[in-house]
Structures are given as structure tokens and as C-alpha cells.
């Protein structure tokens, strides 16, 4: 009997397990886990998740909380500020991938367990504050705060993750049924406009730290000027039709089973609908830019069971996808997303805004507009008959959605491959390849003859214009950010009251070193 006990002890006495229980206790005290345990009946009643999916969700979030607790211990053990590289190293020694460790630290800072100090324009360090969950302010408020702060991008990610299906996003407006809401805060976890640490995102994308250069323009591994070679599709697509061509190639080569995008469908003219594309005919139907915001990310849950999918979307949607990679919500799994095709986006409109523009400024009813485009600072609308109408972008920007002013991303910096018209001649696209997945897809499409390409350096105005406009958007974002912080004490991308400035450093202590030594 005794030897048997020893054997079993050895099994459960594994150092991993001994370490696990205190971490598990910390995880169980987390606001999220407690909420989801207590709301099990509500979640089952809502019918959004079945029993297995509930277990998956709780398990995923529990693992995440345990990881966070482990990182918190590491930060506490370090004693002084830990920088990102040090954090990734510590994470790896615990078996946590570097990007997850970095992301966890940012979330701990968001919750108030650690303090995040800016040591310089590009350096961040984390210092331990408390491990007592009762001393922090629970930040898991519904995503409504983002909407009320006029920052909602209308991507629809919150609708996809909600375990009780109480959120609906339509035309850039979030509606939450507060009677059904269980206040788990998963929507805020998924929201690209609340806690989106760019450093952690770049890390998630490249699996290595971002350089200051990457943070300015996003990662550019290659840039090309390209267009679709199929003549029959050219009238349907926006400029060069590269995003449609990439999807067509992916479907034809059976690399993906489904794709998420937006198509002009339904009864209301120019009100796009989020669709799941299942083949080439759907891609053709979805071709062309829509300019009206569409909550396509709400389809993420529907495609959960597909093996490989592609997503076409605006920068905010790419941010939501990258965020979901490092901050799992349990209800949506982005592991099956093979390609993220980002499009350039300066701003988008509400349906009401675009209606006002066409019917007011252009005096053309929406159902008679065939195509819209933005070129050289002018907004063009092409009616089914007659001359194209145009207006200066300065006037049009006033009709854009307010929330687009707190976005810093023009070129879909977090996508695998970004496609846009800026920088290329008429009928061509600028294509920025950012990751190996993006390169693989683009190269294969070029090889199959569906896309023709030429070096971006050969065309005017080329990449410099893209960079210039990208900087301009970042500068305007910084201005908005500074204004909002000044007015409300809120950080537009964080939606939390900023912590009071840290107390002055004690004189006898040596200055805190950022490298965690």
C-alpha cells in the first residue's frame, strides 16, 4: 500500500502541480472567472453556447488567468521594473510564449495588478503593485463604455464573443440588452478600441519584438503594385481587385473553406452586409469597396468550425483579430484564420452619412449610384447614367464617423497582407506584404497568373505617399488622444481613468533599471 501511495504522490507531487494550485486560486478569484461560473445558468438559458462550448470557454479563460497569475508572480519576484524582453524570457522559462507573456503583462497593467511605466518613447517596464484581487478595480465593464466614448469602430467582435448573445452591432452602433448582460467583460476583451497595446500586437504578429520603425509604418517585408488579370472582373472590382483575386486564388487552390467579408446585399442600397463567402461566386458578389461600416467580425463565431478561413476587413477588424490571438475570449477561436487581408482605410461612414452625402451634396439617390471612390483628395460617386460627381475630401470628412478619428492605422498594420489604392496608378493596387502567410498567398496568386505585379518603386507616387498619409493619420490620432485625455482624463484607446502620476522616486534607492536586473 505504501509503495503505491508513493507512486501516486510522485504523480501529483510534480513541481508543476505544486506551483499550479496557488495560481489556480488566483485565477479563480479573477472577476471574469467568478462571473462566468455564477452566470452558468444564464449562459445556458441564452442558448448561445452548449455545455461543451461553455467548458471550453471556461477552460480557455482559466488557462489564461493562470498564465497571468504566473506572470504576475514573475514581475513580483523581479522586484523592480521588468521590460518586455525580460518578460518574454521569463515567460519562456515557464513555458509561456513570449507574445502571450507580453500581452498578459499589459492586461495585468490594465487591471491594476502591475504598473506600466513609460521609460522612453519605445521602452515600457512593469512594476508589481498588488496581488489582492479585492484591491483592484474590476475593469470588466460592458463594451458600452467604448460606444459612449464615441470610439466604437463597429467591427462587431463584441457580438461574436458575447456568451449570452446580448450585443448587436449595426451601422456602427452597439446595442446591449442590459437585462441579459452578465457583466463578464468578454466584449471589452475583444474590443479593438479598449486596451490594444501596439507593442504586444506587433509581437503577436511577428513573434519577435517590434522595432521603432515597425511601430511607425507597420511591418513591411515587401511592397508591390499589382492588379487582377481577369478582364471580366475589372469593372466589378474597386481598383486593382487584388483582395478579390487573393480570395479567388485561395478558394480555387482549396487553401480556405470560407471567407468573411462584406457585400452589397439586401434591400437597402449601399448598406453592406457581412457575409460568409463559400466560393468564387460569393467573392465576385462582394467585390468593390463599400465605404459604409459593416460589423463583419460578428460572423467569427459562425465560422468557428471551418478548418481554414480568410478575413477581409478594415484596420480595426485586423486589430480585433490580432487582439483575439493574444487575449483569448474562449467563445471565439481565431486559430483557424489562415489569411488576414487588410484594406487601407482612412475613415468609414455610417449609412446615414453616405446617404446625406449622395442625396444632399451630389443630389443623386443612393440606388442610382454605381460606384464610389476616393482619389487624390476627392470623393467620387459614379451614377448609373451621367457624369461622375465629386466633392473635396475636406467636406466629406465631416460626415465620417467620429470614432474613426481615434484610429491610428491607415494601412492595416496588423494584417498578413494589406491592399489599397493609395500610391498606385488608376486600376492598380498597392500591396504590402507583412507576414509569411501573406507572402505565401500573394506569391501563389501571382504564380497562378491571377495577379500581375510590378515593383512599387517603378510607379508614382509609390510607397512614400502611403507612408506620408499613414503618418498624417497617426498625427491626427495623437491630437485627438491628447484632446480627449485633457478633456475627460480618459485615454481614448483605453477608456479607463488614467492612474495618478507615480509618487516621486525615493532618494536613497538606486534609479529603477528597465532591464529587470
Amino acid at each position: 500500500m505504501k509503495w503505491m501511495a508513493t507512486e501516486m504522490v510522485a504523480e501529483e507531487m510534480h513541481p508543476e502541480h505544486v506551483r499550479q494550485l496557488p495560481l489556480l486560486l488566483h485565477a479563480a478569484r479573477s472577476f471574469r472567472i467568478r462571473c462566468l461560473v455564477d452566470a452558468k445558468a444564464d449562459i445556458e438559458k441564452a442558448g448561445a453556447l452548449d455545455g461543451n462550448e461553455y467548458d471550453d470557454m471556461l477552460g480557455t479563460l482559466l488557462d489564461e488567468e493562470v498564465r497571468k497569475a504566473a506572470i504576475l508572480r514573475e514581475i513580483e519576484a523581479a522586484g523592480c521594473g521588468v521590460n518586455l524582453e525580460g518578460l518574454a524570457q521569463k515567460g519562456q522559462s515557464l513555458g509561456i510564449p513570449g507574445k502571450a507573456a507580453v500581452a498578459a503583462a499589459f492586461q495585468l497593467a490594465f487591471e491594476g495588478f502591475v504598473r506600466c511605466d513609460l521609460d522612453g518613447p519605445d521602452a515600457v517596464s512593469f512594476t508589481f503593485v498588488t496581488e489582492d484581487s479585492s484591491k483592484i478595480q474590476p475593469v470588466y465593464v460592458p463594451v458600452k463604455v467604448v460606444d459612449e466614448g464615441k470610439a466604437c469602430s463597429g467591427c462587431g467582435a463584441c457580438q461574436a464573443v458575447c456568451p449570452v448573445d446580448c450585443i448587436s452591432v449595426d451601422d456602427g452602433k452597439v446595442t446591449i440588452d442590459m437585462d441579459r448582460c452578465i457583466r463578464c467583460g468578454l466584449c471589452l476583451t475583444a474590443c479593438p478600441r479598449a486596451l490594444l497595446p501596439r507593442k504586444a500586437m506587433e509581437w503577436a504578429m511577428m513573434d519577435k519584438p517590434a522595432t521603432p520603425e515597425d511601430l511607425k509604418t507597420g511591418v513591411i517585408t515587401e511592397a508591390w503594385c499589382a492588379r487582377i488579370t481577369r478582364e471580366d472582373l475589372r469593372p466589378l472590382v474597386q481598383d486593382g481587385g487584388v483582395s478579390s483575386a487573393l480570395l479567388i486564388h485561395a478558394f480555387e487552390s482549396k487553401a480556405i473553406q470560407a471567407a468573411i467579408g462584406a457585400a452589397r446585399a439586401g434591400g437597402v442600397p449601399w448598406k453592406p452586409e457581412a457575409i460568409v463567402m463559400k466560393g468564387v461566386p460569393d467573392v465576385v458578389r462582394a467585390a468593390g469597396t463599400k465605404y459604409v461600416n459593416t460589423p463583419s467580425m460578428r460572423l467569427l463565431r459562425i465560422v468557428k468550425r471551418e478548418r481554414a478561413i480568410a478575413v477581409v476587413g478594415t484596420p480595426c477588424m485586423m486589430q480585433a483579430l490580432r487582439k483575439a490571438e493574444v487575449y483569448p475570449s474562449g467563445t471565439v477561436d481565431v486559430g483557424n484564420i489562415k489569411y488576414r487581408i487588410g484594406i487601407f482605410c482612412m475613415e468609414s461612414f455610417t449609412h446615414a452619412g453616405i446617404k446625406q452625402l449622395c442625396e444632399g451634396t451630389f443630389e443623386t439617390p443612393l440606388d442610382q449610384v454605381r460606384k464610389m471612390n476616393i482619389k487624390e483628395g476627392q470623393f467620387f460617386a459614379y451614377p448609373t447614367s451621367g457624369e461622375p460627381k465629386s466633392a473635396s475630401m475636406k467636406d466629406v470628412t465631416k460626415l465620417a464617423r467620429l470614432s474613426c478619428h481615434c484610429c491610428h492605422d491607415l494601412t492595416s498594420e496588423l494584417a498578413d497582407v494589406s491592399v489599397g489604392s493609395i500610391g498606385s496608378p488608376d486600376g492598380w493596387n498597392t500591396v504590402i506584404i507583412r507576414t509569411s502567410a501573406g507572402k505565401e498567398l500573394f506569391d501563389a496568386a501571382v504564380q497562378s497568373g491571377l495577379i500581375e505585379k510590378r515593383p512599387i518603386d517603378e510607379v508614382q507616387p509609390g510607397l512614400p505617399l502611403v507612408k506620408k498619409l499613414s503618418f498624417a493619420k497617426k498625427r491626427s490620432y495623437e491630437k485627438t488622444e491628447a484632446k480627449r485625455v485633457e478633456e475627460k482624463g480618459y485615454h481614448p484607446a483605453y477608456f479607463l481613468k488614467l492612474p495618478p502620476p507615480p509618487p516621486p522616486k525615493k532618494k536613497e534607492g538606486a534609479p529603477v533599471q528597465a532591464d529587470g536586473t
Partner: protein
Amino acid sequence: MRVKCTGRVDVSDILQALRDGADGVGIYACHKGECDFETGNLVAERHVNAVKFMLQRSGFDPDRVGIFFMSAAEIDRFMRATNEFVAKIKALPPNPLKMDKARGLNVVI
């Protein structure tokens, strides 16, 4: 710790007991449908199930935690349930965290 109802026993309370070295945690609740506060025992059951789920996921034996439904008058039921539970726990190895403490070693983390 005195509680008015088993519904007060939280997930973290049970895990705290295990973390402090308990080999097992048993919770005796009123019969289902006989709770003075209507759903207290059901809440407790949900918490226990959640703890079992968490333990299983982290490689511990979920049988270390149990919940039993009975009224204060059913002494035989109480004895039977307790004996069975204790026997089950005794068959398991001692809680590793307790062993570490008994040896005077610092518990890792």
C-alpha cells in the same frame, strides 16, 4: 469560517482550503429544493462543479472536493457520506502542499 448557507462558499474558498494543505473539501448542503434561501445549495453545487473542473484541468484529482445533500436530521446519511468521502480521500496521496509545509520546506511560489 461560519457561513449562513453553503451558497456563500465560493470557488476561491474551496481552493484556498486545498492550497492551505487540506486533503479534501466536503460540503454538506440541504436537500435540493429545501434551501431556506431557495437556491443556496444549487449555487454551492455549481461552485463545487466549477472547482472540480478547474482541478481536473490542472492535473489534480477532482474527487478531492465533494458535495452532499442532506438534512440536519439524517445522521445515518451524514455518516455514510462522510465515511465514503474520507475513504476516497485516504486512497489519494496526501496534498503535496501540506507535505511541503510539514517538511518545513518553502512552498514553491
